[in-house]
């Protein structure tokens, strides 16, 4: 079932075009990876899908309705934004951060109810981080912060999560644990649209991939179909090899590594101190 559709979306910022004629379609329960070099317009596209920016051209549709015509409140009940883990000015508790997700369900003048607190706690449990609820958000690890923000998205009641480079700044173990969580939630019907700087992440867990280059869609489709060496090399303007590891599993390597490692001009002399 089609959830989100962008049709010929263009976006101009301060007179210069950031995105041109971007079209894409996202089905329910899919994990979509957005790939592209720095400045290719990934973050902008995510914010257009979220309704934070308005397209200069074309339109973004959520279940057939124009996002521009939906209120932030209605939109927030369906689509949640999981930003890059950021430095937060105030040392809120993890539970307080998750509770913020209840905002679209509350009238303008209101206080959280007991039910809100239960929903927030349940969202933390869903991500197995309920033990962090009274810890300060600024003191937990980067991976735990990202999980907190995902819990906030669930607490918001959204079924579509838009993530801006979710693995950014996480150590390798936390990156893998986070991808596991995403795959796990997608099994339950959650839809993910996430930008990433790691083409491997797209190869590992994405159902669909969109490659953005200079504000245009360079290729889109199943990772197996569109992520070939030629396309990836062109996208990042570097020599990259795609290797088959085991069965159908693939991974990207710099070509120099795939071809046997860097050749140093002078071998390192280990005895000279």
């Amino acid at each position: 079932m089609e959830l989100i559709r962008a049709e010929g979306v263009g976006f101009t910022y301060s007179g210069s075009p950031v995105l041109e004629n971007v079209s894409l379609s996202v089905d329910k329960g899919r994990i979509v990876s957005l790939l592209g070099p720095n400045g290719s317009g990934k973050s902008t596209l995510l914010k257009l899908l979220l309704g934070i920016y308005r397209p200069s051209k074309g339109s973004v549709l959520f279940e057939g309705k124009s996002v521009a015509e939906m209120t932030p409140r209605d939109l927030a009940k369906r689509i949640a934004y999981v930003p890059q883990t950021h430095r937060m000015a105030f040392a809120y508790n993890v539970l307080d951060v998750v509770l913020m997700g209840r905002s679209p369900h509350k009238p303008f003048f209101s206080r959280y109810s007991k039910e809100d607190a239960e929903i927030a706690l349940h969202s933390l449990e869903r991500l197995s981080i309920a033990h962090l609820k009274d810890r300060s958000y600024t003191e937990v690890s980067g991976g735990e912060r990202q999980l907190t923000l995902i819990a906030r998205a669930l607490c918001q009641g959204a079924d579509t999560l838009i993530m801006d480079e979710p693995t950014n700044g996480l150590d390798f173990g936390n990156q893998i644990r986070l991808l596991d969580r995403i795959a796990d939630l997608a099994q339950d019907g959650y839809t993910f649209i996430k930008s990433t700087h790691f083409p491997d992440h797209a190869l590992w867990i994405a159902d669909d991939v969109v490659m953005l280059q200079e504000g245009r869609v360079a290729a889109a489709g199943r990772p197996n179909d569109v992520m070939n060496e030629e396309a990836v090399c062109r996208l990042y303007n570097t020599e990259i090899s795609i290797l088959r590891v085991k069965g159908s599993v693939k991974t990207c390597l710099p070509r120099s590594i795939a071809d046997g490692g860097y050749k140093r001009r002078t071998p390192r002399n280990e005895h000279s101190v």
Partner: protein
Amino acid sequence: MRQRIVPSLLLGLLAAGVVISLGVGRYPVSIPEMGAYLGHVLFRLTAMDEQKLQMVSILLLQIRMPRILAAMLVGAALSVSGAAFQAMFVNPLVSPGLLGVLAGASFGAALGMVISTSWLIVQATSVSFGLLAVLLALLLSRFYRGDRILLLVLGGIISGALFTSLLSIVKILADPYSQLPAIVYWLMGGFSMVDGKSALTLAPPIVGGILVLLLLSEKLNVLTMGDEEARSMGIHVTELRITLILTATFISSLTVALGGIIGWVGLVIPHIGRMLVGPDNHILLPVSTLLGALFLLVVDNASRLLFTVEIPIGILTALLGIPVFAVILRTSKKGWS
């Protein structure tokens, strides 16, 4: 746990503070006397001679109660506005005067004193110019493109500077023997002019404004995450920010009508509140409200009891606020990470 105890503790201290403040002064009223008075007036239980009754009645109802009420209202309003502003602008150095409300209100009060001898007119011009200064700041910030919060601060600086210089003009033009001293005293703040009527008239709007801020405190948390993130959580960012600014400004300008310019309360009290209960505005705003009321009540007692001549309260809040602020900035790093 702390978040449960602190508000009830403050509420208890505030109640005790009110009773003590009613009693102390040049003519002390003891607690048994207060009890006898209450018993007599409310239930006709205790006997009291006519002369004593009249004196206690005037002391409590006409002299001390209005002043106590005014001090608590002003302290509460300034502190809760300060807390809201600090959160909204994500800046620990922000006070309710940021957008020029105090500068505008000072000018308005001075102007009122020059053009009229009516107390009511002075209060009215003070409130109107306080609001006008903030509207000017909001308008200026709309003129430019860029970061909304930074532009608001710049708008406030421009508007504040404008009304400060206008105030200087009024001071130069004022009669140096009668009007100028009145203006100078007003700018130092104080509750000696408060009467029952103005305290009771201004109480409902101030309490109403405080309630609006308290009811928006959870949305305020969301707003501190940044405009885009707040919007993605369904918040109408502009609508919310304007409501918060206008409410905080409105009650801050009303405090000027009651007690003149009283600095430092709105800056320091929220920091102490944050040290007590943490940065969650849901709990910080009510705690700041109570703490501010208690603080100004205590300081007002000091201002009328310390010396035979009353010290303007604005001077005392500054003398107390500055060292506290200096210490807090050293120790409260963790709230602001």
